[in-house]
């Protein structure tokens, strides 16, 4: 497979997952601000933006819900906003139009085409619900109608790396500020994990259990450990003739983060959650770089300049 194609597939996976996770995260935050009369809107929004690595433009005294929505949800030009990620996913799909199935392409294209019409003032929940639904359609097509060949592996790899990264960010929102941040219930809900969690632990709710669930539950696919394990499996699938003496760079990063989740006691993570989550995000980022270097090498861009003698 061409490296260029593989890279696009990888990024389709990442962008769709990014749109999905960001929509979930924002939905919970916005709903929380609406329902809880004592939420401190400015602080909560700033905290959220910092987790998403967004800087508040200088000179903004107060940041509100509307700003967060405008920047992180509706901004079509930024690849880290929901609308932008959907656009970028479609843009990447256009580049691999000959590789992916018509069904998959049409799903992404429809999503992109309908996106502007779905953004309506005052109805963020409808938009987020729609985004979740579209990404579920995408995931369904990928799951049910795609050969488990390289195409699938690259896409699933992108998805799992992004998922681990976004779940880590989500946990950071909680860890940052006890009050202004969302409760564990909201956090679980934003991952769609609330009901799974309740069933697993029969309704006993403690910070420890909830954090443990999102960090290292082996069966829930959105937990960081599960996402990382999936990434490992994809990497293993891509690298069929593994070098017996050394480990692939990307697998080292992912595996290290996963193993530390699997084998270190939960307490160590909870002691400094923001830092631990930063490490997870950095591992995802490093793995992504390693994947790029290995599978998508791009020639140095040579730019010719006219002779200036």
């Amino acid at each position, binding site marked *: 497979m061409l490296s260029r194609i593989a890279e696009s597939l990888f990024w389709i996976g990442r962008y769709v997952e990014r749109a999905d996770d960001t929509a979930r995260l924002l939905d919970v935050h916005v709903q929380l601000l609406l329902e809880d009369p004592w939420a401190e809107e400015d602080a909560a929004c700033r905290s959220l933006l910092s987790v998403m690595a967004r800087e508040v433009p200088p000179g903004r005294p107060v940041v509100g819900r509307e700003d967060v929505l405008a920047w992180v949800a509706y901004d079509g030009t930024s690849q880290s906003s929901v609308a932008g990620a959907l656009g970028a996913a479609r843009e990447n799909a256009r580049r691999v139009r000959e590789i992916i199935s018509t069904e998959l392409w049409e799903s992404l294209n429809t999503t992109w085409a309908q996106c502007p019409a779905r953004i309506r003032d005052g109805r963020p929940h409808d938009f987020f619900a729609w985004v979740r639904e579209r990404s579920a359609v995408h995931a369904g097509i990928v799951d049910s109608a795609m050969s488990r060949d390289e195409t699938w592996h690259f896409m699933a790899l992108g998805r799992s790396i992004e998922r681990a990264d976004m779940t880590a960010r989500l946990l950071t929102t909680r860890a940052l500020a006890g009050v*202004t941040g969302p409760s564990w219930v909201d956090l679980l809900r934003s991952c769609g994990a609330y009901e799974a969690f309740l069933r697993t632990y029969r309704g006993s709710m403690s910070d420890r259990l909830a954090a443990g669930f999102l960090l290292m539950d082996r069966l829930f696919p959105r937990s960081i450990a599960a996402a990382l394990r999936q990434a490992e499996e994809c990497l293993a699938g891509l690298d069929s003739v593994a070098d017996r003496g050394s480990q692939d760079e990307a697998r080292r990063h992912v595996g290290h983060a996963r193993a530390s989740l699997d084998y270190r006691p939960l307490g160590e993570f909870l002691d400094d959650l923001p830092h631990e989550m930063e490490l997870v995000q950095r591992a995802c980022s490093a793995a992504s770089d390693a994947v790029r270097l290995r599978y998508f090498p791009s020639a140095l861009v040579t730019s010719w300049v006219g002779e200036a003698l």
Partner: protein
Amino acid sequence: MADLFDGYPVGRVWDEMLGLDGSVRDAYERVHSSLAQMTEGELRARAESLLNAHLTKGVTFDFAGEERPFPVDVVPRVVAAAEWDHVAPGVAQRVAALEAFLADVYGPQECVRDGVVPRRVVVSSSHFHREAQGVTPPNGVRVHVSGIDIIRDGDDTWRVLEDNVRVPSGVSYVLANRRSMAQTFPELFAALRIRPVADYPRQLLAALVAAAPAGVDEPTVVVLTPGIYNSAYFEHTLLARQMGVELVEGRDLFCAGGRVWMRTTQGRRRVDVVYRRVDDEFLDPVIFRPDSQLGCPGLMTCARNGTVTIANAVGNGVADDKLIYTYVPDLIRYFLHEEPILANVDTWRLEDPGALEEVLDRLPELVVKPVDGSGGKGIVVGPAASARELDELRSRLQADPRGWIAQPVIQLSTVPTLVEAGLRPRHVDLRPFAVNDGSSVFVLPGGLTRVALPEGQLVVNSSQGGGSKDTWVLGAAAPRREHPRSAGLPLTVAKDAAVPIEPGPDAFAVQNMQMQQQQAGAPC
């Protein structure tokens, strides 16, 4: 442009939004102004999206064997903080008194001996179960969940209409209405400080866990439902889901070795607390109706042995018997040594000397209710009844005076409600829900407001064509902080610790160039 409130009749009955002179009451100011800014079309669009939100969630109730969407009105009901601070303690007080009464009735019966309640009233109640005598709940709680129906009469006085301490339903609609309303009116939620209700399932679970038999670590709680054809099945699933406990039917349970178990794929599993939504009569075919398929044989024996807790306790019906209701103010004074905070509605006990004659005389102007009814069944509203109905009722009253009570027709307060003709006043009542965990009574802020949709109709039950409203208790209380933020904790990620969200390959530069090439190539 036509105002939504055009033609809204004011001053006829006590309306909660508009005063007698048409002025807007304080609590409703914000809701009124935002409604007044809307056109009818806008409001109807919101109403439709509200209904759609309910349909998506599957918020339904079963009516005559058919699954119907639960109607919710687009105009919320608002309760000012000061009013709620009167109502909530009143409800809690009432629950405490009923709890004490039940403990007494199924125990030493001191209130009977002291002459507060006549023995014959207690023992003649159809829900007084001798089988429950001597069953002592582990933490002393029998009324884990209660719904005290209250109304606001024509003089702006909150009064208790009836007590429900058996299996009160409706709380799921409170939770569902709130979520759908928050999605439909985000701007109002942003502007008003509405006390949240989402905490209810947690409170309930905590109360159920607290009620577990002594010495059980991590008790297993289950919700016992009659099955999917029950009118409140939606509620059973919602509560079980939000508490994260198993929803069981009678056939999933069995008793062995003096304990209750459920059948699971992992073998049998012990059950410690049964939050049952099955009526007493169906709970245990050994003790009650032998033909019941809904219960579990032996359940009562286990409860008696103290190996399982049934919530709410069996035999609670004696406390919400409508004749006992007339004694509740006395019970509050007797057990709690307090004056009742919420008054009763004046009620004739037909067995009192002279009462039956007076009631029979004035039948066309009174409301007559069966003492053990619920869901608005059997209620006869005098002014609305035909002569034949009244005649029939007369003979029934004479035959069984213990079985009925009579009350004056109360003008329930009204709240604007969206109907065919626009916004019109419709009568409402309120069912606040209270959860007793043994140490305190938690009253859910708000509750289920039921609204009678036909004009002038005073019976508000959903089985009688009623709708509901989301009830907003405004939060004037000081912010409640569960975990005060420790001073050292940062609020945002430090700049150097923030991991940027990676952008994809720089595609746009290439894109520009490709387009240039196209343009350049076009003339060829």
